[in-house]
């Protein structure tokens, strides 16, 4: 059985996180931006679970669990907000939603 | 290690072959049952009593041209039926059909793989099943399909909640997440099944209702309500892609029926202990069936039946005899009980399809959120209090 260095998992987590950031920065669709956030959360979850393995403690799993719960709640509210935005402005382009500017 | 892989591969092959055939014949059974409910003969032409009808259907579906409409989202359109059937097949992997058996010097379970979170696995996979339908509806780029997909995803995530809650109650009673241990905790007689001992009759009813909705069966088959949506999410599908959805639906029915059996009806446990003659029941049933068939063969309603009924009668009597052999009883009896219970529930699926009308969509959602969910919640609450009280 070949084993995997623990830093590989963390590196994977870092890559996924960076990709999430990239999605947030470069995408214009609100929904995609939102999904990028979920991607970042997933990357962080992977780190938590990895740390849990490293320290042989279950706490990391619980953090992940709570992140999931919060993500679910966030998705419910966030998507409701997206629906409202779409209803009021008929756009999903994040650069069009900038009325805070003035 | 190697033997493990080999055994697993053999089991895989057996289960896949039996299951896929069973699904095809399930379709035949359903058509027959509904036909008899509606007082008509049903499939009759292909083979004796239409017994070869499924084969003919398969040949037809496979050889038909797979249409790919030009305006669909190709990758997803092709991907969706794949997801649907994969997810339906996946959950079978953790479902045990019987206890450990001893074959050719090896001990093995009548199950592909045992997870100690088997129930969670089934839940997870069934929740993934939504994607097949939702993506199919969306990728078809057709308003009927889209609406069907929307309805289906809304319906499935709505009914997943009461279903999960209904599953949680027997889990509390049995105190395990492993499907095998779940059955082990219900060993004995019908009195120790979760539906009786755990007082989970309400959970069972909720589970069955939610299962009907999860599998998009009548009376909850809104996603494919033909008078409103043509054929719902699979309007644009034909040939094998269409067959995939069809298979997925029947596989899901088998899965939920098996789950209901494992969770509530004691799995492969006999309704009463063997010393009171439960081991003779299969023989008796098959013997009676064989005698009836032979009688009908002697007095055939049709010319051809003289041979078919006689043949069936002989086969049934043979099976009845096999059940009496002590060397196979150890694994055949549990399998019989498991399949009998699952079959009963499957029969209920068909029976209800022949009897009930369809819900209206708002009634469907209202029923899920305003009635089923609170009741399931209450049931779980009461169960947990009782479990905490007793332990």
């Amino acid at each position, binding site marked *: 059985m070949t084993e995997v260095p623990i830093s590989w998992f963390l590196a994977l987590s870092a890559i996924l996180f960076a990709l999430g*950031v990239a999605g*947030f*920065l*470069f995408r*214009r669709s609100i929904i995609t*931006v939102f999904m990028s956030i979920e991607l970042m959360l997933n990357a962080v979850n992977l780190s938590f679970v990895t740390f849990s393995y490293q320290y042989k403690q279950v706490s990391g799993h619980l953090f992940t669990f709570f992140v999931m719960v919060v993500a679910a709640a966030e998705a419910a509210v966030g998507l409701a907000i997206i629906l409202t935005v779409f209803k009021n402005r008929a756009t999903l382009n*994040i*650069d069009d*939603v*900038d*009325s*805070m*500017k*003035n | 290690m190697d033997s493990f892989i080999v055994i697993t591969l053999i089991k895989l092959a057996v289960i896949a072959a039996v299951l896929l055939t069973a699904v095809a014949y399930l379709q035949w059974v359903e058509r027959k049952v509904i036909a008899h409910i509606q007082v008509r003969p049903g499939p009759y032409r292909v083979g004796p009593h239409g017994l070869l009808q499924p084969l003919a259907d398969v040949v037809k579906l496979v050889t038909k041209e797979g249409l790919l409409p030009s305006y669909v989202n190709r990758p997803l359109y092709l991907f969706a039926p794949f997801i649907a059937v994969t997810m339906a097949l996946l959950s079978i992997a953790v479902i045990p059909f019987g206890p450990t058996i001893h074959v050719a010097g090896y001990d093995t379970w009548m199950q592909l793989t045992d997870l100690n979170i088997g129930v969670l696995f089934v839940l997870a996979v069934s929740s993934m099943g939504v994607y097949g339908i939702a993506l199919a509806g969306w990728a078809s780029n057709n308003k009927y399909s889209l609406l069907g997909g929307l309805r289906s995803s809304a319906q499935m995530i709505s009914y997943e909640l009461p279903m999960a809650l209904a599953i949680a109650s027997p889990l509390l009673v049995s105190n395990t997440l492993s499907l095998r241990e779940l059955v082990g905790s219900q060993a004995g007689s019908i009195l120790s099944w979760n539906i009786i001992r755990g007082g989970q009759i309400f959970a069972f009813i909720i589970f069955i209702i939610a299962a009907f909705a999860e599998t998009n069966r009548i009376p909850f088959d809104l996603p494919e309500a033909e008078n409103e949506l043509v054929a719902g999410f699979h309007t644009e599908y034909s040939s094998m892609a269409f067959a995939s959805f069809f298979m997925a639906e029947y596989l899901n029915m088998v899965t939920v029926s098996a789950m209901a059996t494992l969770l509530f009806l004691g799995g492969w446990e006999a309704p009463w202990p063997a010393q009171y003659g439960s081991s003779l029941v299969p023989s008796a049933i098959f013997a009676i069936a064989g005698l009836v068939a032979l009688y009908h063969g002697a007095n055939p309603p049709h010319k051809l039946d003289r041979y078919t009924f006689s043949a069936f009668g002989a086969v049934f009597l043979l099976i009845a005899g096999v059940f009496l052999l002590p060397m196979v009883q150890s694994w055949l009896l549990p399998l019989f009980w498991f399949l009998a219970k699952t079959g009963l529930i499957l029969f209920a699926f068909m029976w209800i399809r022949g009897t009930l009308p369809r819900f209206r969509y708002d009634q469907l959602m209202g029923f899920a959120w305003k009635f089923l969910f609170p009741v399931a919640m209450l049931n779980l609450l009461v169960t947990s209090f009782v479990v905490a009280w007793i332990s």
Partner: protein
Amino acid sequence: MQLWLIPILPFAGFVINGLFGRRFSKGLVNVFGIGSVVLAFAWVLKTIAGLGDLNSAYTEHYFTWIQSGAFTINCDFSVDRLTEVMLLVVTGIGSLIHIYSIGYMAHEHGPNHGGYYRFFAYLNLFMFFMLVLVLAANYLVLFVGWEGVGLCSYLLIGFYFTKKFATDAGNKAFIVNRIGDFGFSLAMFYIVKAFGTLDFSQVFSRAAGIPEGTLTLIGLLLMVGAAGKSAQIPLYVWLPDAMAGPTPVSALIHAATMVTAGVYMTARSWPIYTHAPMAMEVIAVIGIATAFFAATIGLAQNDIKKVFAYSTVSQLGYMFVGVGVGAFSTGIYHLVTHAFFKALLFLGSGAVIHALSGEQDLRNMGGLRSKIPWTFWTMACAWVAISGVPFTAGFYSKDAILLAAYRHAPWMYWLGTVTAGITAFYVSRAMFMTFFGKYRGHEHHIHESPPVMMLPLTILGLLSLGGGFLFEVPKFLSSVFPPVEEFEDLTLMLTSVGFGLAGIGLAILMYVAKPAMAESLAANIKGLYTLVYNKYFVDEVYDATVVKPLVGGSRLVLWRGIDVGVIDRLANGIGYGARDIGGVLRLFQSGNIRSYAAWVVFGSVLLIVALGLAAGGGR
């Protein structure tokens, strides 16, 4: 024993009446307002019965309030015999006065029955704080009650807040009390510094080991606090003005209970004082000076409540004399009897005022004896008691104090005896001007007060007459305080009684037999009379020496100089600065979410770099 229930009951009354009383009928307000206090009284009785002999303090711990290293302050209540006496006085007399208030406040006009619910809510709140003060097992909890009663006193003095003089009087009481509280706070700080704790039992058990200088300082600072609360020279000026509040308030807060808190506190702190004789001497001197000084002012007052207010100041002086000469139990004894007769005098004067529909000036009264006889006879009980007529309540306690004072320093005895004579004279004067002679007022609908007011008067009357030998407070408290030598001297006793009777006799002569004599006397010693009539111009002196310079200085230095010159400039400068910085930062606020995200990432990168640098490159 659930000691917490005692203060919590009135507090519940306060909360209920305070929150919902606006919508209640008067009856319902009464149920909660008076019921809670009566229940508290009942609970006090049950507690005392349950605690039995109580030769050492019984303490209940509730929670740790402040914890800082080794220094801990608990929220504790504790009961010993001294506390029992105070509890009985506070809840007993408090209950009577609450009942009396039903009748007294019944005719208030204005919205919500003239703030009827507000009155009882404040009164209940006062009871709560007073009981906390009495039950406290350390200085800080006592201070909570101390400040709380001050607040309630302020609220109730200014109860008629539409009248300027009432709110002014409230402010005055509050501000003067602040000076005293400042002293008290300093005392607490020194106690913490010297003892490391504020807990009574620990402080008192360690008092012997502390240098006398520190104890003297603490004692004097505590005395400043007590002087503020108990209206002693030089901080007595607020009490006469406090009569602007409703009369039951004057009776409860400014005669029977709150103003005696200073005496209670000094008596409670006796282990500190016994090791600081200097401080005790100061207390005794201040006490006797206040007693005499306030009595002389009382001679020339024409407002019936003012007379009794100065009398209160004077009697509080007596109590301090008792404490100051080391006879702590006599001070508490006088506190109890004074609570009886002074509450009665105030309630009686309230009944008179009530009968005359608000008239307070003695010159507009007279001859009321026949019109409101029950009021007269009950007040007469208090009159003989305060005058020190033998075998009444005041006789026993005042006599005990004077005897103790004689043992300490004979001049104090003589001054006290003279004061007793003056006291007898001015109280008699007030009584005669009210009840004897012929009626000089204009109100013609003079009526006896309702039974609900007469009942407390009657009970207090009986207590004023018999309370002295019924409750032998010094004997009861003998286990609490250091023993005092038994000292009986019939001559001295007779002398002081004689002075008292002489005072009454003089008053009969001047106000009953020859009514003109008072006027001519006043005319003969016009200078002196004017001086006394204007209360020695103390208020004016304070105004000129303290208040004016303070206000002027504040205006010039604090307002013009510091406020405008420094603070405003600073505040405006910050504002301008923020605006300018904002002008730059505004460019970041593009409204574009993705730009924000980029800045967040930028910050994260900086943060990671900083963390890496801080951790020394990672390992």
